[in-house]
């Protein structure tokens, strides 16, 4: 089988969950070969092998993190030329989609973004990507018909499954061109978010909205999130009001999430918000307005005062955890 390149997302030590999802997806259509930039490949090798990686191409240069996007696209273009893979998979994060975009231009290839599944076309055997568009209203089957298919996969769309792979390390010697080193990263500012999982990767997300009434009340959302091991999200009304940092916004102008469980607290469910969460598997809602459109999506909803319902829920979760 031909190789499928999987660009690893990692923090220099740990592989992100989305990479294990990509490996699971790639395995069904070829031999998954991980592309690793920067340090940490040796340490992560076992984990990559656990999810079926046959090879790990390692490009260790610091250029890949010192400059935005372009060096990684250059590396993938080099590997496409050298290894002739059947496809390239990246995570549909902001950076992953941008890498996909540059790579598409470099190689004259088609790119599908925000893919939630991959199947093989029954006639041609080529890859067909499933995409969920217009806030989940329409599911589209698409294919790439030029170059090497570049597929950006939405985090949390695939359940990672283990299958052993050799994860053989192969160093890649490539000098990043000066042209790819024009947008220099000068610093990194990490916002306080405690030990919570990342919003787009989390299997449970608890979001708060206008009903919270103030930034201080987001402590209630954080408390519920922590009792569930969840990430915290916020509606646009809440981020626009400055109650919670903008990068946690879920919706049309923020993040798209599809966790196993989405809990919407004090969120009315304007279309702008629903566009970012309605593909969640299970949705629970607490809102005082029984007419709020968010209830249309709810698997379970409580009409009531969130300042009474949420503390009781947190206490009950605590009781069950203790008992």
């Amino acid at each position, binding site marked *: 089988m031909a190789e499928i390149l999987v660009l690893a997302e990692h923090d220099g030590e740990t592989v992100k969950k989305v990479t294990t999802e990509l490996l699971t997806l790639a395995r069904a259509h070829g031999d998954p070969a991980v592309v690793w930039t920067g340090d940490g490949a040796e340490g992560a090798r076992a984990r990559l092998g656990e999810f079926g990686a046959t090879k790990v191409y390692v490009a260790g240069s610091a250029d890949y993190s010192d400059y*935005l*996007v372009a060096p990684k*696209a250059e590396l993938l273009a080099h590997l496409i030329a050298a290894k002739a893979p059947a496809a390239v998979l990246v995570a549909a*994060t*902001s950076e992953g*989609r*941008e*890498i996909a*975009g*540059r790579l*598409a*231009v470099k190689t*004259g290839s*088609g*790119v599908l*973004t*925000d893919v939630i599944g991959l199947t093989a076309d029954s006639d041609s055997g080529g890859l067909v990507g499933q995409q969920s568009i*217009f806030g*989940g*209203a*329409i599911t*589209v089957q698409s*294919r790439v*018909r030029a170059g090497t298919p570049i597929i950006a996969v939405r985090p949390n769309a695939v359940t990672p499954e283990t299958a052993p792979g050799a994860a053989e390390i192969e160093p890649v010697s490539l000098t990043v061109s000066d042209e790819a080193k*024009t*947008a220099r*990263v000068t*610093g*990194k*500012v*990490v*916002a306080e978010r405690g030990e919570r999982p990342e919003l*787009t990767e989390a299997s449970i997300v608890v979001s708060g909205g206008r009903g919270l009434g103030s930034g201080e009340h987001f402590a209630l959302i954080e408390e519920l999130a922590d009792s569930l091991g969840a990430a915290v999200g916020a509606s646009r009304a809440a981020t626009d009001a400055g109650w919670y940092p*903008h*990068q946690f916004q879920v919706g*049309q*102008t923020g993040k*798209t999430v599809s966790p196993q469980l989405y809990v919407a607290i004090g969120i009315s469910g304007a*279309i*702008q918000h629903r566009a970012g969460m309605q593909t969640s598997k299970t*949705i*629970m809602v607490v809102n005082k307005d029984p007419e709020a459109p968010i*209830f*249309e*999506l709810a*698997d*379970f*909803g*409580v*009409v*009531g005062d969130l300042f*009474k*319902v*949420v503390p*009781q*829920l*947190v206490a*009950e*979760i605590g009781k*069950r955890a203790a008992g």
Partner: protein
Amino acid sequence: MNIVVLVKQVPDTWSERKLRASDSTLDRDAADAVINELDEYAIEEGLRLVEAHGGEVTIISMGPEKATDAIRKALSMGADKAVHVTDEALRGSDGLVTSAVLAKVLGRTGFDLVILGSESTDARMGTLAAMLAERLRLPQMSFASKLETDGSKISIHRQADYGYDTAEAALPAVVSVVEKINEPRYPSFKGIMAAKKKPVETLSLADLGLAADEAGLSASATEVISFANRPPRAAGTIVTDDGDGGVKAAEFLAARKFI
């Protein structure tokens, strides 16, 4: 500074958005058309830079004839002039083709800075800034939540899941913005009146030296094979809190094995 802001007309998120059964392209007649929301932030940022450094803001938009509404909106906010790329042969163009056409236009107009919204609310690919930077061989300063420039170099806060990165580059550059960057102004009555007299140049593919078969659905590197409307969610259980709403919610979570 010579600033170009890219503007896209999109179907309004608040109306029902559909694909055409015949060729799986966007049904532009089904939904109200509006300016892509994030583009308003790009326009605002361009206007602020010109107010601080002098120069002018040029709007470039690719789209059908009625995209003039989005262009007029941009001009009424205060942009100086516009270029409208419109051609029946462009219909169905994917991201790769769109970026090729826009790069051609940008080559004609020249610029110190290209600013665009980080994604459109219809396609939501979020790849155009990266594609343009690649085609124009320019630095990519994308997902900016803050932008500073002295006219020769630019530094940004690049929004990330963990907070933000700081990044810098020399001009000219391609910038994409997120909504945190500013608060777009509303067009004034005076601005709306003035916009009617501002120059809008209309370009066809031929004007750009491109053949009809270099654009549109047939030239695109991707294609939609089929689509289906998502079935509506089954109605859930809604309870009214009688003092035990939190307990009932916990019972639901336990039944679904979340706790």
